[in-house]
């Protein structure tokens, strides 16, 4: 496949690895924000090939991992109601709530459907006028434009039986929260390439300057990932802290402005709690008042939500890059992809599932 195969070429990978090894002169800590990149590093075995001086820590960029437990329990309560078709991206189904998950509701005969695109949920609403169709609108800046467009389309089609349970999060406030933390070790970031394809990378300039960290926009294939690392290491070695784009074929400085305008027309910045991490001010998007008719939280009264996390799970420390999965006492024992205690063991973007899949127990 064009734009993929040439970025997996072993010769290019080897040369980039050699170049990284000759450039790095002392221990350095880089964080890849995006869980998709974590999986790509481990899937291609790059983590074992990088020099020992480089400590690559995994960031919070796993959408289902950071969706707050309250919101998952609320989703479960709505999905349990009669006459509801609850729709979600597939990754969310096995994420544990306090008592169960969406998959368990579906196994009991509940109407929980996986959609690939949020427009499928809109079509479901149009085709089932006697049912309430709810879409779980989660994710970072990559899913916000599709989810916003689904809401606009439902409005345009006059659908009264469509609503969304919103739990959107944004990358830049999370980076600032990480860098402001007293136990921060991160010296440079690989910025999530696809988030930047939507948002551009102008927002990162102030962060790089304020916190003195290199930020390199990075893609997902082995060559892309290693180019991102090399650029960040070169900056650290020469004392620079700038924003650089190492994913030029997909990302421009301003990003997709049409997508940004659509996000702004449907959503507005709100405080958001991140599962395992806590509240980060203005780190999320919520529905604008003019779209309140589509707000599933207002449409369905589900009573008080009382949450309880697993006492064994250290997902918060994993998501902050403070620990790696094998340092968790439950990893591979009480917690596995078959019996997950926390979301990072479930998700295709979660660090725990990446370690379990590619490094075993």
């Amino acid at each position, binding site marked *: 496949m064009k734009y993929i195969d040439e970025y997996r070429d072993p010769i290019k990978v080897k040369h980039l690895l050699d*170049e990284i090894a000759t450039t790095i002169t002392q221990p350095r800590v880089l964080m890849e924000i995006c869980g*998709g990149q974590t999986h*790509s590093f481990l899937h291609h075995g790059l983590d074992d090939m990088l020099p020992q001086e480089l400590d690559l820590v995994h960031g919070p960029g796993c959408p289902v991992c950071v969706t707050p437990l309250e919101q998952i329990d609320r989703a479960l309560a709505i999905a349990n109601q009669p006459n509801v078709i609850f729709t979600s991206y597939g*990754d969310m189904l096995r994420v544990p709530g306090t008592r169960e998950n969406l998959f368990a509701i579906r196994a009991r005969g509940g109407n929980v459907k996986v959609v690939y695109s949020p427009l499928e949920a809109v079509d479901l609403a149009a085709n089932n006028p006697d049912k309430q169709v709810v879409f779980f609108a989660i994710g970072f800046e990559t899913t916000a434009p599709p989810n916003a467009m689904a809401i606009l389309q439902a409005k345009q089609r006059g659908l009264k039986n469509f609503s969304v349970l919103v739990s959107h999060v944004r990358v830049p406030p999370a980076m600032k929260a990480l860098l402001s933390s007293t136990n921060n070790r991160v010296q440079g970031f690989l910025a999530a390439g*696809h988030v930047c394809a939507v948002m551009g990378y102008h927002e990162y300039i102030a962060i790089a300057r304020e916190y003195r960290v290199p930020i390199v926009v990075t893609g997902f294939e082995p060559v892309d990932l290693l180019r991102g690392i090399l650029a960040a290491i070169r900056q650290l070695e020469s004392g620079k802290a700038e924003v650089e784009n190492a994913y030029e074929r997909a990302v421009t400085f301003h990003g*997709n402005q049409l997508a940004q305008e659509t996000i702004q027309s449907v959503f507005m910045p709100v405080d958001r709690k991140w599962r395992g991490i806590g509240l980060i001010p203005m780190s999320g998007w919520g529905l604008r008042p003019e779209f309140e008719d589509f707000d599933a939280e207002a449409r369905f009264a589900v009573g008080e939500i009382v949450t309880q996390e697993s006492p064994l799970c250290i997902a918060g420390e994993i998501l902050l890059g403070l620990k790696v999965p094998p340092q968790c006492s439950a990893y591979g024992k009480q917690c596995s992809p078959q019996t997950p205690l926390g979301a990072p063991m479930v998700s295709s973007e979660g660090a725990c599932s990446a370690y379990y899949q590619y490094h075993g127990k």
Partner: protein
Amino acid sequence: MCLGIPGKITEIYERNDFLMGKIDFSGVIKEICLAYVPEAKVGDYALVHVGFAISLMDEDEATETLKLIRDLVDFSEEFGDQ
């Protein structure tokens, strides 16, 4: 969810007043919303997330990237020979 993949646009049309298209992912054809890339043409490669094209691949930039890496490879091979 953020792991978008590039595919080749094979068809462009409207559905429910929204710009849609067919995209070929190495033989798997899917219907994709093209509303965010209205400049797309048949034959372009688009980066697709959850059923939406969010950016078009820039062929010139891709060629430039591969040239940069080739230069790195050439340089180190030449250096290694000396």
